[in-house]
């Protein structure tokens, strides 16, 4: 009986201790990964994840960093990185280690190759945050966008979050979003054509599935202007010489076709078989191509009788 009471008191004290800290879900949105690679952001996130004492009701406030996303690359972390089976006690250390591991180890390219998001620029994103509750923006540089406050000091972030928690009381949103970014460093690099004289190689740069779709889309304008007339058409010609891509409205415009190449999940290669040039400006008004897609051979086999 005494042993039972001792065990019961241990269990009771354990739950009492664990209830001292009220954890709140927090999204962390990051716009630049340089700091992660140098390890500075993990230290910053450690500070953010550390429980602190609230000024308004003497509670200990802690944050559970459940979701970390990189808006510049449109990548989010996986929840299981933060699903700590040991409970809350090691949460801070766990968050520090796992965040760093995630941003260093994640195969970003494999996550990105299917995306068709256009360039994700920071200013429009900031505007979507204006007026939203529970969103705090941290930046290394002091800046102000519209009526949105951007904090440059982590203690100031803690103070702002604390004031928010105190003012909201029972109406507190269960999720707090913290945005980290470094100003003017969120542009997605644009890959420019390497050889303006080689039409096929430039088109295949756009068709390169291993590259992010947004990067491929960015290449279209420069390649199009360099090689094609404004109303140029594309004909996909089969081995037997029949056009495969006709529509009720004629053949597709080259620019539309290039865009479809940039977003294709199956394109493997494009071969240029023929083109017609304007005598005046030397630009191409009609191009004949053939496409190879993933699974084409498999489809041919399937269409044969068994």
């Amino acid at each position: 009986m005494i042993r039972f009471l001792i065990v019961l008191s241990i269990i009771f004290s354990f739950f009492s201790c664990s209830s001292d800290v009220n954890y709140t879900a927090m999204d962390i949105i990051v716009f630049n990964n340089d700091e992660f690679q140098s390890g500075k952001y993990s230290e910053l996130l450690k500070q953010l994840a550390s429980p602190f004492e609230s000024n308004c009701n003497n509670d200990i406030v802690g944050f559970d960093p459940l979701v970390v996303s990189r808006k510049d690359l449109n990548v989010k972390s996986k929840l299981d990185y933060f699903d700590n089976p040991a409970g809350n006690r090691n949460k801070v250390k766990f968050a520090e280690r796992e965040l760093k591991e995630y941003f260093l180890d994640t195969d970003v390219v494999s996550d990105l190759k299917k995306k068709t998001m256009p360039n994700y620029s920071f200013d429009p994103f900031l505007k979507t945050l204006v007026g939203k509750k529970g969103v705090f923006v941290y930046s290394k540089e002091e800046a102000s966008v519209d009526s949105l406050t951007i904090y440059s000091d982590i203690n100031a972030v803690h103070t702002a979050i604390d004031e928010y928690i105190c003012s909201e009381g029972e109406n507190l949103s269960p999720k707090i979003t913290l945005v980290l970014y470094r100003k003017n460093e969120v542009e997605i690099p644009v890959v420019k054509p390497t050889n303006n004289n080689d039409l096929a190689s430039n088109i295949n740069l756009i068709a390169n599935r291993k590259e992010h779709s947004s990067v491929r889309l960015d290449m279209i304008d420069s390649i199009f202007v360099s090689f094609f007339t404004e109303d140029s058409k594309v004909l996909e010609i089969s081995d037997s010489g029949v056009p495969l891509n006709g529509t009720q409205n004629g053949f597709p415009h080259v620019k539309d076709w290039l865009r479809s190449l940039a977003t294709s999940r199956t394109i493997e290669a494009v071969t240029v078989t023929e083109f017609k040039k304007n005598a005046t400006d030397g630009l191409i008004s009609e191009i004949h191509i053939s496409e190879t897609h993933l699974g084409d051979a498999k489809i041919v086999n399937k269409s044969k009788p068994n």
Partner: protein
Amino acid sequence: MLKLLINLNQIDVRNFIFIIISYSFTSFLPTNIIAQKLSKAQQAEFEIKCIQLANAFCGYIDELTEEKSLEEDMSTEEFFNSDVCQWNINQMKSFFSTKNLKTNKIIGYTPTGSPPIKYTSIDNYIKLLLNQRLKYKSVVYDFSAFQINKLVERVDKNGEIYYEGKVKFKQNFYASKNHVGNSELGWDVFHEDFKSLVFTIKQVRTAEGRFFAITFHKLIVEQQLI
């Protein structure tokens, strides 16, 4: 024509009238008499092209549901009006002829996973999907299982030969309430879509000449929306 005029002096009036009548008749022959047929090799090439197009078409749908799952803060309406959504929808619409778009009943779906099929517009179908899948953080599709019905040769009311076919394929749909990204681990919902795109291949005349055009008519999704 020049040869015809030279010969005029050497023929009598009856022959002249016969030549004129014959010339006039052959000039205004109805187009169906010279309609081309597809060879076996050409049919096989068009079948492959239709599968590629079906893949691309459904890729736009999946891209939208996937992008929406990453934009948790945006409402369905906000996302629907965004540039990325509208661009994908316009690409999808480019698959259909203007005539079909005007009927506004292009995509058929089964709300409960079984017939009867309801038909709706691309816009409404996308809104439906975005609403249904909002609660999932990530989706992954497997396009691997394709099947095409052989093209069937038909003749329309004007005597024109055309070809009708249907691309049928199964999509494996994996979704997760928790995981984001292309992880192979932790997918907690498994679901199958059966889709078919009905299309025809027909000769058309435009300012650019006469050629074969692939026209999609409707997409049927045998799917229980979740």
